């Protein structure tokens, strides 16, 4: 599963002008080095800075708040965004679900349990037709294609919400249909910073990004280390070390190691340093692997040390050929000991082109029940939903998650400890992507 995310930027005119021109020619971006040269050496512009109001407030046609950098406001925890809602797009309260309808659902592969869907079909006497997308950008292309009428999308990344609203693809929620979300969904997401009032989103999965390893193959104890990220830098297992396969997770890791708590960095020098740090790991281990299949790699022994998402780590137990070897898998989220670390969520959104908005509302709400969210986690996704009934303690007690892997379960508090990898302005995004492209190319 590929869940790339982006961030933001304000900044120096020279670089912006240069990159804007590049964007005008189709993002004709040269290598990172060339970009930096054009930026006059990449002077420090602040880390995660630029939280000045976008001027979007009142002026932006899509919403208020946020920071500047894109045609629509970019949401930040310290600069929340309230998206404009056209009342005509909100369905009336108290309607019956569409009868005899086929509800068209978009999801990541294996990201919504078939059993949960079947129960919904039975409950509302409807048919659900599922289409999958293999990465968020392809998902965006699918909902933007002409002539499609998908009703609902599970797993839209937070970074994709703003642009989808700006492109007119999303339908606002009528919260009268979301009673289960209201009662069992985390309070945090009743009005998140990226969508104040939750007008367009309800949360779907939550995860953190941590360190996943085979404790029968390597002896490390990140929990007791002054800097847990050093496990990737100090004697990482040669040929057996891997990182996730997207720019933000990969480059954020050395930034966290350097103590940054906001990794939505716009400074080219910081991005370059992160790239060089990762390149130094690649050199030590004789070539890094970048992938999202840690959940099969570690059980198979293909890798012994992997940067990982908590949902993948929880899934990995399923892929062990010998389930009694679950103790050999260890996962650690640095945020649990107060180190800088990533924690994130994705969302469920309604699509404006859909023909069955009532059923779409009902399905979005359906998965929030304790029963369905547990079935979703246990039977298919391995990713936890933001529901009150699912806590690290309850998951361990029920035996669904081994005690030593309890940090794969995210709690509400983790969102105050960890930091987000957020949507970037196009020019900054290009910097990150170029740096990552150079890493994967070995340049």
């Amino acid at each position: 599963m590929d869940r790339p995310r982006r961030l933001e930027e304000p900044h120096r005119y020279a670089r912006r002008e240069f990159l804007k021109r590049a964007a005008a020619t189709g993002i004709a971006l040269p290598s990172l080095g060339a970009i930096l040269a054009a930026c006059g050496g990449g002077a420090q512009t602040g880390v995660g800075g630029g939280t000045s109001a976008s001027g979007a407030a009142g002026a932006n046609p899509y919403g208020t708040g946020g920071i500047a950098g894109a045609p629509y406001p970019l949401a930040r925890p310290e600069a929340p965004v309230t998206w404009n809602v056209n009342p005509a797009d909100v369905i009336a309260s108290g309607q019956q679900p569409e009868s005899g309808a086929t509800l068209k659902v978009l999801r990541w592969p294996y990201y919504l349990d078939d059993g949960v869907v079947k129960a919904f079909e039975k409950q509302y006497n409807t048919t659900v037709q599922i289409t999958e997308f293999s990465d968020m950008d392809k998902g965006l292309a699918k909902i933007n294609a002409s002539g499609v009428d998908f009703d609902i999308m599970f797993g839209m990344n937070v970074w994709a919400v703003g642009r989808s609203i700006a492109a007119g693809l999303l339908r606002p929620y009528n919260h009268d249909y979301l009673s289960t979300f209201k009662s069992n969904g985390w309070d945090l997401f009743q009005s998140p910073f990226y969508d104040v009032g939750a007008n367009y989103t309800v949360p779907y999965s939550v995860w953190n990004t941590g360190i996943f390893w085979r404790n029968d193959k390597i002896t490390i104890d990140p929990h007791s280390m002054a800097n847990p990220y050093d496990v990737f830098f100090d004697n990482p297992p040669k040929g057996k070390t891997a990182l996730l396969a997207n720019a933000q997770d990969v480059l954020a890791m050395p930034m966290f190691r350097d103590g940054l708590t906001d990794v939505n960095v716009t400074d080219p020098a910081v991005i370059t340093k992160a790239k060089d740090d990762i390149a130094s790991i690649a050199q030590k281990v004789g070539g890094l692997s970048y992938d999202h299949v840690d959940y099969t790699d570690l059980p198979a022994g293909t890798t012994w040390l992997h940067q990982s998402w908590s949902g993948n780590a929880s899934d990995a137990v399923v892929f062990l050929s010998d389930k009694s070897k679950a103790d050999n898998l260890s996962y650690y989220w640095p945020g649990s000991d107060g180190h800088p670390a990533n924690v994130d969520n994705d969302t469920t959104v309604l699509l404006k082109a859909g023909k069955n908005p009532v059923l779409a509302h009902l399905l979005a709400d359906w998965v929030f029940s304790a029963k369905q969210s547990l079935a979703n986690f246990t039977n298919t996704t391995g990713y936890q939903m933001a529901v009150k009934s699912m806590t690290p303690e309850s998951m361990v007690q029920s035996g669904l998650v081994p005690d030593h892997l309890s940090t794969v379960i995210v709690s509400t508090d983790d969102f105050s400890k960890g930091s987000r990898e957020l949507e970037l302005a196009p020019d900054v995004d290009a910097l990150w992507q170029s740096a990552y492209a150079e890493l994967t190319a070995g340049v």
Partner: protein
Amino acid sequence: MSSEAGVAATRPRYWPALAAPATLFLLLFFVFPFYVVLAVTFGSIDPILRQPVPAWNPTTWNPAILSFTWSNIVHTDGLYEAAFVHTFLFVGLATLLCLLIGYPMAYFLARRAGRYKAAFLALFLAPFWISYMLRLLAWRSLLADDGYINRALIGLHVIATPYPFLQGKPLTLVLGLVYGYVPYMVLPLYATLDRIPESLMEAGRDLGLSPARTFWHVTLPQSYQAILAGLVICILPMFGDYYTQQLLADRANTRMVGNAIVDALTQPIFVQRGAALILVMLVLLIPPILYYLRSTRRATELAR
């Protein structure tokens, strides 16, 4: 009137219509997609969804991305330079190995297998009834640290610790390519070698040639066109191959152009780069194809 002109004059008028399905197919599945690649390469990026926007009107085409891509191919330490070097190197080696393995195999099948010819041919082709992807996944199991190959090598005391076959080894990649593409070399060679008249060999031997010289002066020249066909059929798909590297040698030091294209295409702001790489690849592959076509035409003319 020449005999050819005579045949043309008596040819029914509807004959050209028989080419219509193929023409339509080519228009739909080659010409149009190719134009899409051009339109994307020379197009722009949507500022909101950040997805590529094709430029359908050639008068609005912007060559900046193509120029950027080209400069990153030809400049040392360019983003795509290593991928092209790797591709030429690995494809060259793999094709040579395909020929060295495929020719004797095809020769044996065609001229020495006797009444077991069909059985040997079926045995040779049997593994290829399974998809290449699945076979590569099987190779991953075989080549894993605790796979049968490492276990056998350790058991035979050839190595003391598992050899990291799957950790970006060019050797694994080249052997994977050979394994995947050797049938494309064998089959045209087999078809040609099987059709060489025995009388030609006998004539060579009657003129006092040794078996080796008979092969050199009779068999090899007769199979030249098949060798050329085998080379072209192997090289073309190998140049675009990306999954062999992904499954058997997924590291930066073995990345090929196919991998660079896939990486670019999966990142919307870089889709144009991917399209530009496809154009460059196409241009690079045109000369060998033209050479093959010219050579085939000349061979046909000589045979008349």
